[in-house]
């Protein structure tokens, strides 16, 4: 079966295309877009050939995803039924390119160094719909700060140099202030960026270019003696991007379907979405459809 387009490019070392031709979510799942497990299963059936070589993920990212897996599934791999989340897919991307901009100027109190990040979202398929998106920060192990620290994150989404006319115009840059607090016991800091990324992922953007800077000061309330200059942020590791998605393909597990509807959904994702538009259930949906026909 064909490797997906992204794999072919990475293998060929070709520059990632920043604008994929718009793919409708009704696209038939042919070989190139065969979801998840099916393509390697077919490979084993055909020629028993093992998988293509893979880039190794970041250790910290792998550690986070293993914790998420333990929270969502049993040792045998059965999804835990007490979890009421709607997502059936979580993708973690580490930035494929990052560079620090000029370090901030401590005297004028401008922001310390901010980071330019590029995330390649080629693995997100047309049938995966974004539910939530998070920037995931962690710390260098060496860090230790005695008191809680208040931080503000400014995030600027950058339009790629050339953007295809068909995509909805995304304003050139957003500033997205969000506050959070660093405490010694936190291993991970999640910054919700769903509102910002929703339109980009929905328009099938293949890569997202953003500049992030985080400014932290010691919490004055708890430690009035602390000097008020911004802290040096080198202890923050470049963030990963976490996407919580609902895979609408027939192979994916739809827990809310299996909880509420006895009969399995019809295979087409569009019928599924149509039914989900009628929360009363299929009979009601049927009624509405037939009255529509009558009208």
């Amino acid at each position, binding site marked *: 079966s064909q490797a997906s387009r992204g794999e072919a490019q990475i293998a060929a070392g070709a520059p990632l295309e920043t604008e994929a031709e718009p793919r409708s979510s009704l696209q038939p799942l042919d070989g190139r877009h065969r979801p998840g*497990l099916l393509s390697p299963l077919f490979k084993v059936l055909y020629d028993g050939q093992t998988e293509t070589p*893979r880039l*190794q993920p970041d250790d910290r990212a792998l550690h986070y995803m293993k914790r998420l897996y333990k929270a969502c599934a049993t040792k045998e791999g059965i999804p835990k039924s007490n979890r009421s989340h709607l997502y059936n897919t979580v993708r973690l991307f580490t930035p494929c390119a990052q560079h620090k901009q000029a370090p901030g100027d401590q005297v004028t109190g401008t922001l310390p160094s901010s980071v330019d990040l590029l995330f390649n979202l080629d693995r997100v398929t047309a049938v995966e719909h974004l539910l939530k998106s998070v920037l995931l920060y962690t710390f260098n192990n060496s860090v230790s700060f005695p008191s809680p620290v208040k931080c503000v994150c400014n995030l600027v989404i950058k339009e790629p140099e050339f953007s295809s006319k068909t995509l909805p115009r995304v304003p050139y840059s957003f500033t997205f202030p969000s506050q959070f607090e660093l405490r010694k016991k936190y291993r991970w800091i999640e910054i919700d960026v769903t509102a910002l990324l929703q339109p980009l992922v929905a328009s099938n953007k293949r890569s997202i270019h953003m500049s992030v800077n985080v400014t932290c000061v010691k919490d004055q309330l708890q430690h009035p003696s602390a000097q008020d200059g911004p802290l040096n942020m080198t202890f923050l590791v470049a963030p990963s991007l976490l996407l919580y998605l609902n895979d609408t393909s027939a192979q994916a597990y739809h827990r809310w379907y299996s909880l509420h509807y006895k009969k399995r959904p019809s295979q087409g994702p569009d019928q599924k979405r149509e039914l989900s538009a009628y929360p009363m259930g299929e009979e009601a949906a049927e009624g509405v459809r037939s009255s529509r026909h009558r009208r």
Partner: protein
Amino acid sequence: DQETVSSELKKPLVPASFNLSEYFKQFLFPQNECELHDFRLSFSQLKWDNWIVAPHKYNPRYCKGDCPRAVGHRYGSPVHTMVQNIIHEKLDSSVPRPSCVPAKYSPLSVLVIEPDGSIAYKEYEDMIATKCTCR
């Protein structure tokens, strides 16, 4: 009258050539009856452990065994199953007996490393057989 009744009572209940154990055999359940079996697979056997991080063991389970002749209610089988059995036994043996197949499945969660190095948690439908039926 008494003579008729007594002569009736003297008649053997079953014909002399009739073999009782043979007769009951047709109602016994088959020894290797249709049921669920385990098959614990580790992804390293498929050489997939370089990209499937979790779970380490995967037991898809499978259905195996003979379907009893009178399967009406026992496996949740439709009446069609008995009709197919009768056709096989009485009319045309080229029509196969009903098969022992999965009737229900449960999903499986996997943690995979994608070719580009990103990490994905996915939940797939119908990956573990949980109930068998004769169809």
